[in-house]
């Protein structure tokens, strides 16, 4: 699964640590998700979508 988190985060001017704080996860988690090395659970995907004010399918796409 690919995602646009890195781009969206850059648009907001956030660091990985900022996003990690907003999501209440570790920075390593954000890094792994951004790199497509780890697919988040559905609750975390909803949380990510909420943080960016978007729908899940606008952030995550099938490869």
């Amino acid at each position, binding site marked *: 699964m690919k995602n646009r988190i890195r781009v969206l985060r850059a648009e907001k001017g956030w660091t990985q640590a900022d996003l990690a704080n907003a999501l*209440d*996860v*570790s920075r*390593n*988690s954000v*890094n*792994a*998700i951004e*790199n497509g*090395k*780890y697919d*988040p*659970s559905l609750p*975390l995907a909803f949380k990510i979508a909420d943080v960016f004010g978007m729908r899940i399918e606008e952030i995550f796409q099938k490869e």
Partner: protein
Amino acid sequence: MAAPKLSARSWRIIAALGFWALVAVAALLRGTAGLVLAYVAGVWLIVFSLLAWRRQDEYVRAAQKFSWIFGGLLGLLASLALLPALLQPGVLVSLLGWIGDLLRAPDGSPPDPAAPAFLLGAVWIVAGQLVGFLVCWVGWHIAKR
């Protein structure tokens, strides 16, 4: 009473420091008191590890589940495979003798005859699982970077 909102790392540090402190005191006391304290150390480790687990995010939990399932299983199999080597004359005494000394009562009487069985059936197996866990844990983090 609700547990204070410490980070997972803080709970892990508390778990490890308390556990090893209790184990050190247990090793000094030896005998029945030492054994009781060793059990208390085990309970301490379980309680504070659970508190750490509750504060971890899902990525860390996924890494730990993966490492316990696959690393723990491989470590278990490896420790069983190495058991015949451990049973060779002299090997068990030289490798795990220090644990036998800890199990010896303060009055110098010989340790419980069940001690070697405990060392081989529990300590050795758990140690193998821990090594397997650590190898998988490190591998997971390298792979996910």
